């Protein structure tokens, strides 16, 4: 029953959907990035490749900042959520799904509500900063909102469940007997974790980093609402160029640059950590 057609039948419907509603529109982006013109006279395809170096040149601070913020928030989310995913998978018992669901629950409420309440909590005289000020732990002028810290905090917060779920899925399938056997072999729990659990959960980490990292590098809402001067990310620029300035070629070029940068990161990650190999051994 190993018909060669099977994988195509399995992937076919999904790929058809993505092909029509994602790839085709995306190709148009590539061609638009090479056009010149304006919204009144229209744009012509002039194969204007200089748009790419120009855009990188003009927006390199925002591009680099996006990868920095995205990277930091992804790393924090990974470190914070790995133990949570681990505990739910190994010690959640029969209530594992329940715990996962609870973790995800705040994210069914619109992002605007979450951000509004965070703004309130983190306000200069609000619950957190206000209290710290009155105790004298931070200075009178201390604030979190409108700083890079606020943007990264916002990005990290929104990433928490997206990081936990795939890691949980990967850990959950690890063979218990294997872990027990490792426990007998290595005296310390640390060794057991490092040599067995961590490598076996690598595909989940990979998926979590993909999900969170990519979303966060391309995000613009956090920077727009929680950020201040000099926290603009590339997503904000793309948004403005599309919607406000109708400069489609620059917006398209920046989109492609962002996507290529992200894909480069994905491939470097896969290359350095050899995700495929680990998957095959696991």
């Amino acid at each position, binding site marked *: 029953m190993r018909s*060669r057609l099977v*994988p195509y039948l*399995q*992937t076919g*419907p*999904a*790929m058809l*959907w*993505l092909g029509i*509603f*994602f*790839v*085709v*529109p995306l190709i*148009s982006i590539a061609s638009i990035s090479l056009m010149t013109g304006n919204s009144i006279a229209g744009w012509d395809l002039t194969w204007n490749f200089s748009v790419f170096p120009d855009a990188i040149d003009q927006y390199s601070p925002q591009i680099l900042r996006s990868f920095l913020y995205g990277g930091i928030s992804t790393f924090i989310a990974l470190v914070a959520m790995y133990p*949570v995913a681990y505990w739910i998978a*190994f*010690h959640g*018992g*029969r*209530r*594992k*799904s*329940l*715990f996962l669901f609870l*973790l*995800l629950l705040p*994210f*069914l*409420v619109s992002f*605007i*509500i979450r951000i509004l*309440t965070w703004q309130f*909590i983190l306000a200069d005289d609000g619950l957190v900063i206000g209290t710290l000020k009155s105790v004298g732990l931070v200075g009178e002028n201390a604030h979190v909102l409108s700083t890079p810290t606020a943007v990264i905090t916002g990005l990290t*917060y929104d990433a928490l469940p997206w990081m936990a*779920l*795939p890691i*949980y899925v*990967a850990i959950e*399938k690890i*063979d*218990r*007997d*294997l872990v027990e*056997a490792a426990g007998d072999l290595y005296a310390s729990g640390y060794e057991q974790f490092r040599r067995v659990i961590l490598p076996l959960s690598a*595909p989940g980490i*990979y*998926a979590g980093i993909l999900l969170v990292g*990519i979303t966060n590098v*391309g995000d*613009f809402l956090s920077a727009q609402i929680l950020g201040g001067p000099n926290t603009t990310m590339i*997503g904000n620029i793309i*948004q403005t160029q599309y919607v406000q300035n109708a400069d489609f070629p620059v*917006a398209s070029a920046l*989109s492609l640059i962002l996507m290529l940068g*992200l*894909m480069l990161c*994905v491939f470097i990650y896969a290359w350095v950590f050899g995700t495929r190999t680990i*998957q095959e*051994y696991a």
Partner: protein
Amino acid sequence: MAGRGASPGSDSARPVRSRPWSRFVLPVYVTVVMLYTLIPIAVMIVYTFNKAPNQRLTFAWNGFTTEWYGKVFQVADLTQALWHSLEVAVISSIIATALGTPAALALARRKFRGRGLIDLTVITNLTAPTVVVGASLLGFFIALSIPRGITTILIAHVAFNIAIVIIVVQARVSGYDESLEEAAQDLGASPLVAFQKITLPMIMPGIFSAFLLSFALSIDDYIITSFVAGQTLTFPLWVAGAVRVGIPPQVFVMGTMIFVAGVLIAIASLIMQRRSERNLARSDPASRATT
């Protein structure tokens, strides 16, 4: 390789041998993280009881009232927007899970020509900034004269959820030993039965997580939806628009209702699980050992 032969379904429910670290430190940490994610929800719930003389929500405390719960469906467009959101989230995650799961199975277990291309498409779909996805899709719909509305929102949401489903389910399936399924087939089970009895239970947690993720991403999406929505408003679109002039307290009440509905579903599933466990324990004494 020890334990390859163990049934994966029952095995995964068994806790790993406990150490003090995982018995005390970890549970406390997990609780703290969970509470942290719930902070905004707590604030939201508290402020649904705040008086709002201007029908706009404020964080200044104007006095206690339950008025807004009685008037929750009085902002007609908002109610409609909430229904749209739920409708889109449910249907799009079902479609995306149905399409994405088989694709993930194929990608995780088979080597076939064109696999690289599919991998690339999935990763590109994930790496595409939402602004780009929204704007390019819109152009596509207009070019084909497809009227924008709930259908186009649905199409767009499925398009971004498929890749998520594929990634999550793939993480679950990859490395999973196929010999079990093959053994079942050798023993005379049809491929379909073998899939149902062996593979499906094994990958079910992956499918469940993927569905949850899709649902949550869909119900919270603002950027892509704003491009393809046409005259249809979803909950995030309505709320984002209303922020300009101040949001009515009903928004927080609806958020609270979504949250409470979620908690109730969780409790219900817990009770049902308990009951089925009790039944199981009565009929099969051996299973007691693992719970």
